[in-house]
């Protein structure tokens, strides 16, 4: 438990330090630091609609972030959340637009199922290559992101394009209003229940089931796990599959919720931010929930900032970057450096 507390303290210190650094940069650039923080808080919580917007942006981060947590538990680095998210959204879009006359509930269920399957298959391929051939999953999931983004671009600019659309970026046609589970705010009881249920299920899986323990064992020491008779490949595949399924689900929620249509390259950062969310959440389910709300608040503040203060949104992208840049720093290493007691010969 002390270990957990130490990690929590170290994360809080590092995130706080990132904030301080960003504040320093803003202060040098001539912005009032007080304005920045009050602007961020207004944009994330107090302004009209800001709290809803925070939750709206936290939802995809949470779903994809939980997938990342599952992957990390078994020792896999899934940075393909973006592609899996896009594929999920695309699959749901194809179902919703292909079956406009269908009964709403059935279409939504089918679309969600299709999204889960699409996200799952988008992560199973890198997963299979990893467990069967040892192919590095960081590279393959990164590639799958690009392919997923191009599939989305193809659908929104090609077969699903809204011919009357006038924007610079191509967008798909809107799905019928009946197929939506929220209004454009992106928050409704259905969505909150769904996301809450998913979080509880993931927590149960990881902390209260035999399979969750098996995954943790595989992540800690795959060799030992194999010697204990665990089918490491099967565990790896299931882990990858679950991870992608959650990202695919996030895509479906995005389409049937706030989106209602897909735009080329929408939410371009969400996949990578979700990895940061999972790390800031210390790879635990409830930590990820807190981190997702925190980063959802930042995202919401980015959108609200032009309205409430004169601070440009890129300042918060910068802040995002600072947090990601520093959050995995091992404070232990900093202290060791200072006292100079440990030899450099062994870094692990």
């Amino acid at each position: 438990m002390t270990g957990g507390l130490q990690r929590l303290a170290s994360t809080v210190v590092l995130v706080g330090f990132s904030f301080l650094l960003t504040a320093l940069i803003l202060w040098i650039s001539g912005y009032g630091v007080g304005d920045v923080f009050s602007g961020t808080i207004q944009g994330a919580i107090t302004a009209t609609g800001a709290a809803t917007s925070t939750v709206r942006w936290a939802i995809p981060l949470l779903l994809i972030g939980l997938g990342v947590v599952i992957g990390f538990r078994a020792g896999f680095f899934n940075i393909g959340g973006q592609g899996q998210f896009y594929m999920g959204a695309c699959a749901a879009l194809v179902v919703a637009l292909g079956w406009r006359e269908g009964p709403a509930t059935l279409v939504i269920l089918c679309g969600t199922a299709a999204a889960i399957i699409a996200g799952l298959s988008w992560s199973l391929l890198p997963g299979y290559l990893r467990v069967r051939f040892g192919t590095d999953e960081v590279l393959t999931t990164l590639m799958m992101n690009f392919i997923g983004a191009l599939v989305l671009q193809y659908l929104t600019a090609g077969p699903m394009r809204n011919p009357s659309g006038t924007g610079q970026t191509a967008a798909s046609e809107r799905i019928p209003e009946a197929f939506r589970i929220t209004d454009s705010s992106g928050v409704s009881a259905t969505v909150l229940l769904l996301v809450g249920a998913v979080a509880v299920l993931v927590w149960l899986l990881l902390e209260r089931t035999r399979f969750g323990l098996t995954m943790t064992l595989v992540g800690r020491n795959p060799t030992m796990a194999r010697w204990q008779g665990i089918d490491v490949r099967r565990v790896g595949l299931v882990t990858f599959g679950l991870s992608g399924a959650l990202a695919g689900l996030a895509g479906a929620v995005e389409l049937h919720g706030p989106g209602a249509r897909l735009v080329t390259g929408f939410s371009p950062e969400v996949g990578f931010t979700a990895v940061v969310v999972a790390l800031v959440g210390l790879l635990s389910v409830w930590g990820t929930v807190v981190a997702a709300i925190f980063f959802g608040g930042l995202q919401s503040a980015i959108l609200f900032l032009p309205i409430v203060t004169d601070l440009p949104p890129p300042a918060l992208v910068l802040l995002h970057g600072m947090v990601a840049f520093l959050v995995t720093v091992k404070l232990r290493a900093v202290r060791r450096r200072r006292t100079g007691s440990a030899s450099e010969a062994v870094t692990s």
Partner: protein
Amino acid sequence: MEQILATTFRSAAPLVLVATAGVFAFRAGIFHLGLEGLMITGAFTTVAVAETTGSVTLGILAAIGVCMALSALYWWVIGPLGANVIIAGLGLTSIGLGGTAFALGAIYDRRGSLFTDVVLPRPLSGITSGPGVIVSEHSILVWLTPLIVLAAWIVLRRSRFGLRLAAVGEYPFAARTAGVSPSIMRLQALLIAGALCALGGAELSVGALHNFTENMTNGRGFIAFVAVIFGAWHPIGAALAGLFFGLADAIGIQSQINITERVPREFVLMIPFVLTVVAVWLGGLWRRRSLEAEAGYAELKEPDF
């Protein structure tokens, strides 16, 4: 046809420069996902300094300086401070993208883009007849790019530095035993990579265009990283991969114009990524030591955070 070739070289040059940067990092065992951030920082610094001083040389030198400083910070965070290479790299990218867009607002009080008349010379701009279009519109940096790639290859293959770097990337523990500090070698490789990213960014902003635009790199840093893997982390291979991406881009633009083309441009653009997945897979299948830099990467990629 001429137009396709011209576009290919113009799109490929910044990719090739940044991919060469990626090769240096990869040889040192670092999966450098901060290339995008360094590239955009280079593009912005070049334009800002060139516009202020009126000298494009000063602009590029400043960009190299800033990118090397950021690279040193990146090294400090992933090396001595033990941060995760991939997450910190992605963070560096966000810092670059957010920082440049923010600086644009803070310094010039504007959003969007910054124009400049101070651009790189185009040595053959006089030739405009017939196939001359292939060579006329390229900046001096495009012409220097093959030389830079060749120089990188010689340094990596023939110099003491290059061989030590390979040793550090392949097996840092042995390198350390032989008296080579992996940490210092990584710093040097990252500094070189930073300088090359600055050049890639400069070519993008003052070579091919006359301006800096927010998010103008548009994922090119990541594509350059893919080119490194696709090119088997060899400077020439990465350069050819970069050229291939440039060609895919050029064909993509053409097929967008030419409606009769039956293959959607997205599928053309997809080919390199699919091929890279296959290449990474086959590489691992055929050779046990698929990633030469695996050990070095393993040293930095610690599973527990």
